[in-house]
């Protein structure tokens, strides 16, 4: 039985993309956290001495971060496109991935010159990313339903709600970070929330990755009959 062969291949690619995204997120978040701790304001127009070195490191790693985002985006789109041959719901996730990635890359360009546009665009990208997760999980839930696996379906519904809850907390987090980061006194608070943000973001990718693995196992057993 080769009924869900495209979904299987697609999910495998999405899982690879998730791993790249986890690494990229951890990396860039750690760097931002360090910059916050060191009191270096990326938006500032004047840098001196050691600050300049850190800014250059940030810029280079920022570039790689953008590259990682693009790579993640391409692999995810490829994976969702392949999976959508068996289940159309994945097409929505694919479109949202493209939009989210584009907005994120565009927003990153504004990070230094205009923090306001950066804030808005990253908020939008975050929400569209939420829909990537929702539609991606929704597609896998539908596959579980078609395979008559109510346990996997119920698990998917549960993790979808958890995922949205984490996005909600991340959104609140982002507001708090933005409010406190401009104040030198509150930078530590901002940094703590930044760590919390990092943990939540990483957990989202892990949740998605683990559920994808569960669905892959389910499909493997389904194929075996």
């Amino acid at each position, binding site marked *: 039985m080769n009924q869900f062969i495209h979904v299987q291949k697609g999910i495998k690619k999405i899982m690879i993309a998730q791993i790249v995204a986890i690494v990229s997120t951890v990396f860039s978040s750690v760097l931002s956290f360090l910059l916050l701790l060191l009191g270096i304001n990326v938006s500032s127009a004047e840098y001196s001495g050691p600050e300049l070195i850190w800014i250059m490191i940030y810029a280079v790693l920022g570039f790689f971060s953008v590259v990682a985002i693009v790579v993640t985006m391409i692999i995810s789109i490829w994976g969702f496109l392949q999976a959508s041959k068996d289940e159309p719901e994945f097409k929505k996730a694919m*479109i949202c991935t493209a939009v989210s990635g584009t907005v994120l890359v565009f927003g990153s360009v504004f990070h230094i010159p205009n923090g*306001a546009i950066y804030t*808005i665009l990253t908020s939008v990208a975050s929400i569209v990313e939420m*829909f990537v997760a929702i539609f991606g999980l*929704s597609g896998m839930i539908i596959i579980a339903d078609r395979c008559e696996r109510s346990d996997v379906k119920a698990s998917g*519904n549960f993790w979808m*709600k958890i995922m949205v809850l984490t996005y*909600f907390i991340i*959104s609140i987090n982002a507001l708090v970070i*933005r409010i406190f980061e401009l104040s030198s006194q509150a930078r530590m608070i901002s940094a703590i929330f930044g760590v919390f943000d990092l943990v939540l973001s990483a957990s989202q990718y892990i949740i998605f990755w683990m559920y994808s693995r569960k669905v892959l196992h389910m499909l493997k057993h389904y194929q075996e009959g």
Partner: protein
Amino acid sequence: MSKFIQFLYHKKVFLAQQTWMVPACFGLSCVLTVSGVILLALRGFEGVHPEWMFSMGADIFCMAICTMLCFSQTLNRKNRSEDTYVFVTLLTTCALALFLDQASWLVQGNAALRYLNLTVNVLFYMLGSILIYLFWKYIRGALKLYDLPMQIADLFVTAMLFPSLLLCLINFFYPLFFEVSAEGVYQRAAQWDVSQVYLSITLAVVLVAITFAKASRKERLVAISFIAIPLLNQLLTSTSFGISTQYAAMTVSIVLIYGVLFADREKTLASTEMELGVAAKIQVDMLPRSFPFLPERPEFDLYASMTPAKEVGGDFYDFFMVDDGHLALVMADVSGKGIPAALYMMSSKILIKNTVMTGKSPGEVLKAVNRELCQNHEQEMFVTVWLGILNLFDGTLVSANAGHEYPILKTPDGDFELIKSKHGFVLGGFPGLKYKETVTQLQPGSKLFLYTDGVPEAENETHEQYGFDRFLHTLNKNRDDTPENLLAAVRNNVKHFTQDHAQFDDLTMLCVHYRGSNMKELTIDAAVENIALVTDFVTEELEKMNCPLKAQTQIAVAIDELFGNIANYAYTPDIGKATVRVTFEQEPLSVIITFIDNGKPFNPLEQSDPDIHASIDERKQGGLGIFLVKKTMDMVEYECVDGQNILKIKKNLE
């Protein structure tokens, strides 16, 4: 937690059903518009920059538009839905935002009104979040975005509203988004962009929802315009302090939404209403409504009613005499609503009646009708049917059930109870199905109650169903009432239970009170040797009524003549069946004997009477027997109905 959410849901439903909301919103919009004009007049134009005048002018103009749209919704009472209330709330909130925008310019630069300036701007920012939230709600309702991803997105947007409003309130104490200087001048703060986050994420949710909604391109473009027009306005005016036409731009979008989405919906509603009107007329016209049905038949009393729901369903009932001694009862429920259900109902009803009239038993009728429905109907509709044929003479009820509700029966000395007889599958589902028959013996005084699922499944505001317990309790409370009063009692009880909650299904009921029959019937071979049997049968009944001997003798002679004629001539050379019925009438006490056969049509009354005054030689042969019958009986009638010879004789016994 779930009880709390349920409470909030019912509060929402409660608010949505309050008809005062629309006129109240209209009133508020009026007040805001007039106040805006008055405040501007009172303040005067001193110190007002031309850009501020432009903004305030746009605000007043758009408030007037919001007021007029609210007014149109106030007049349009008939077609209000939950979306109407959201739309009107959206309009009023927009009008309020416009008023606050105007007010902020009126107090700008006035040191004495610094705190008023602060308050107005805080409310202005809060309304921005509320407005975009209301727009999301409206679009969700208009585009029917109710699947799981959108439900979750809705929860997210609702949850994010509260921190957004809280951050706006913080501005009273700390200049988070803006500050108002001691001179009363407003300016944006460093974290002003945070105020746009909720707006941005909700707009992102709306864009995703619109992109994937199952809506026409026109609807999607109009919905996107709500975002595009204010966004375009923002891009054009953001660099210029003094021109704040964001909400004016939003009003333009709302008008566009109203013009396209709403007007489209009104057109669809009007066309649907017309369709429903036609469907309702078909349904009502098809149902027999003339009561009492056959009042001259003392064996039964019958009443039926159908109270239609707002959206016409396909419930129907039917009752008709199959022949002189058999009453057919039908209770049915067609799947679906509107004109298709009404037409399916019509064809099912006609099919059932025509098939019953061919003489088939209930099970055979349902089998034949099912075959017909499966062959000729492609809409994938079906109908549940309970069909019964009641023998009025002996109370035997033969019934068959195709997926319908169980009938309720009350014995003469007992209570109303559900009769859980065998169920077949619905009609129109699968071809070739058979339907088992159930035979029930009704005693005189029994009551049979038929209904559709609209009765037990009627819901109140908390979505609790009426249920069978309440149903049976109501019937038993009024067990001795006539069928008409029983139906009224159930109807009133259901209405009392549901209160103002809209009835979503038809309430269809039929009740038969079987009184029993004093008619006795004998069907026997029409043979000469059976004349004695027939005479004994009739005599036995006559003796029960203390019939005088003379009358008995005359009747015996009449039977001898009439049954003898049937035996000798009706089926010659074959032998067929003949039925003899005996019925008694009171005041005066009389007996009616009916002879029924399916032989050659013959009216014995057409024969001319013999000349009894002529001599035996001159007199023609034959006719004397009939003459005697005519003379001794008080009434002799003949009719031929559907090939049956029916001859009735009546004799007073007093």
